[in-house]
């Protein structure tokens, strides 16, 4: 029971928007599409829904080819980043709208709408108009509408992006159990690695129209297969360093020589790109680290993100507690060579953290 994308390609004129994507989305798990804005998440969803036809490739729903079937004849529900409701219908009628199109008997409509409204705590608001609701309530109405339809495929396109922080956290917790009972194939697009981790399930990292990696969310976070997946799944951005290994030493692009410690020890000679996250480095050290100057410090309560310019680029270091590092202050960054990802020049993972 699944939705399978087989070598899906979408071209727009000469541009390749979606480049040979193959993906299996299973029922009963949260399928997360993680990628930056314009990576192709929404386009992929439009293809899954049948709003657009792929230029090549096949789309299989439960082993049936649905590639050419238009959206009206499919069982799809979608929730958008914008709050999309019919402006002239009450909350009740908004939720009921797909059922009215399907010409369900009134009693059935009533019971399904009540059930969805109860799950999303919209019961006291059923007679209101969308303009009289808060953003969170409007989005809950849109989600309820997607829910009542009992569609085979439910697409959630950054549904929480326009909500404020508090509401976002609240709804994010409520969503997986609400949809778990629906037995639909759930697809959830987001730009935030943290959101993907909180949702769990399986993640496909999307980068420039390609799916760079697909698997259980925590596994991708722990061992990204390529530098694109690692970049997509790092917030703050992935720290990177280009090195050349020669004998027992590694040489950086800036000409520094370091002993080949940690995961670097067993590598054959050659050029590599190292990637490591902000929590794999420490600020300060015994003089063997990378010297640089502080460019920005972001405080986020119990933690500080210190951006350090090390000459070859800017690295972000996570420091516990609130520190007042002044821009321009000298700083030393120590990298834990046991915790770096080593990628080859093409960007594929050579060896991960030990």
């Amino acid at each position: 029971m699944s939705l399978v994308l087989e070598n899906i390609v979408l071209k727009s004129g000469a541009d390749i928007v979606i480049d040979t994507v193959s993906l299996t989305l299973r029922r009963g798990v949260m399928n997360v599409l993680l990628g930056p804005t314009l990576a192709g998440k929404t386009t992929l969803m439009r293809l899954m829904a049948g709003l657009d036809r792929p230029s090549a490739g096949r789309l299989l729903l439960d082993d049936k080819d649905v590639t050419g079937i238009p959206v009206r004849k499919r069982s799809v529900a979608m929730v958008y980043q914008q709050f999309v409701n019919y402006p002239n219908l009450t909350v009740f009628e908004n939720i009921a709208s797909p059922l009215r199109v399907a010409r369900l008997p009134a009693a059935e409509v009533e019971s399904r709408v009540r059930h969805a409204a109860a799950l999303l705590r919209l019961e006291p608001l059923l007679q209101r108009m969308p303009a009289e609701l808060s953003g969170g309530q409007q989005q809950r109405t849109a989600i309820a509408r997607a829910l009542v339809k009992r569609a085979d495929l439910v697409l959630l396109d950054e549904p929480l992006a326009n909500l404020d922080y508090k509401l976002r956290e609240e709804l994010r917790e409520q969503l997986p159990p609400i949809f778990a009972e629906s037995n639909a194939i759930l697809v959830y697009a987001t730009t935030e690695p943290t959101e993907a981790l909180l949702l769990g399930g399986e993640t496909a990292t999307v980068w420039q129209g390609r799916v760079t990696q697909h698997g259980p969310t925590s596994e991708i976070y722990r061992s990204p297969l390529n530098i694109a997946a690692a970049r997509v799944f790092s917030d703050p951005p992935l720290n990177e360093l280009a090195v050349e290994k020669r004998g027992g030493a590694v040489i950086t692009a800036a000409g520094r020589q370091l002993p080949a410690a940690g995961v670097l020890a067993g590598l054959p000679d050659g050029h590599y790109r190292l990637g490591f996250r902000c929590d794999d480095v420490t600020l300060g050290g015994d003089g063997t680290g990378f010297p640089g100057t502080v460019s920005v410090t972001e405080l986020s309560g119990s933690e500080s993100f210190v951006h350090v310019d090390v000459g070859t680029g800017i690295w972000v270091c996570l420091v516990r507690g609130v520190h007042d590092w002044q821009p321009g202050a000298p700083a030393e960054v120590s990298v834990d060579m046991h915790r770096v990802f080593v990628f080859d020049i093409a960007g594929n993972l050579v060896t991960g953290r030990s």
Partner: protein
Amino acid sequence: MMDKPTNNRAWFFVLPVLVLVLFSSIVPVMTVVNYSLQDSMGVNNFFWNGDSWFRDLLNPDTEIGARFADALLRTIAFSFTALAVEVPLGIAIALCLPRRGWSVGISLVIMALPMLIPWNVVGTMWQIFARQDIGLFGAALTGIGLPYNVTQGSVSAWVTIVVIDVWHWTPLVILLSYAGLRAIPDAFYQAARIDGASRWAVFVNIELPKLQKVLVIAVLLRFMQTFMIYTEPVVVTGGGPGSATTFLSIDLVKIAIGQVDVGSAAAMSLVYYIIILTACWIFFTVMTQIDRRGDR
């Protein structure tokens, strides 16, 4: 309590505007008020007449009152007819215009062209256009056997004036509706497609409600302009045949300049003015209420 600093110099800066308003609005309006309350026996020979001009005007049993009531009804009928045609037609055409691509600019310019033509030119154009002997429109209608004659048939005259106004001003409704339609996010159409909604349902449940604000503005502007229509009927029909197309503004000019009945004309212009002001106030109230509902 804190003393706010006062600076009387501010009045000095406002003064030019006050003087301008004095000469542009207050003096002319007060002159009209002056005329409406007095009777005249020749140049500079005025005497107090109270509200009798107004009482005559608003009493349909008097000659002037009957005339005013007729013209008012005719004007209201004209406004409603023009609006009833222009608004649906404008929306329909806006829906048919392309949404993207090179054809957008071209279609909008072509649509907007009639609006750029001055009123009296429009009148003259249509006056020739409607002629039975050499006018394309008039000759064509006569050719297919319709009893069309602007100068003699009151229905012909009336229809011609409505057609002129529709031709001249539907573009305004088109442009406003088009702008309103373009402002609807694509996600709404997508959601409707996913819901399986029909084209009609999309129009009724998405497009029309989202167009509400611009339509109120369109109706307000079109109402004001049609209610004050003057140039086209004067040029094309001269208010005739008989008084078939004698709208309020035309009647006003006839009374004031044709008959030099200054007192009646002054009373009439004030009533006319108050009617338009009231209509605008109602529209404005409705509009701001819609705004407030949308903001929540």
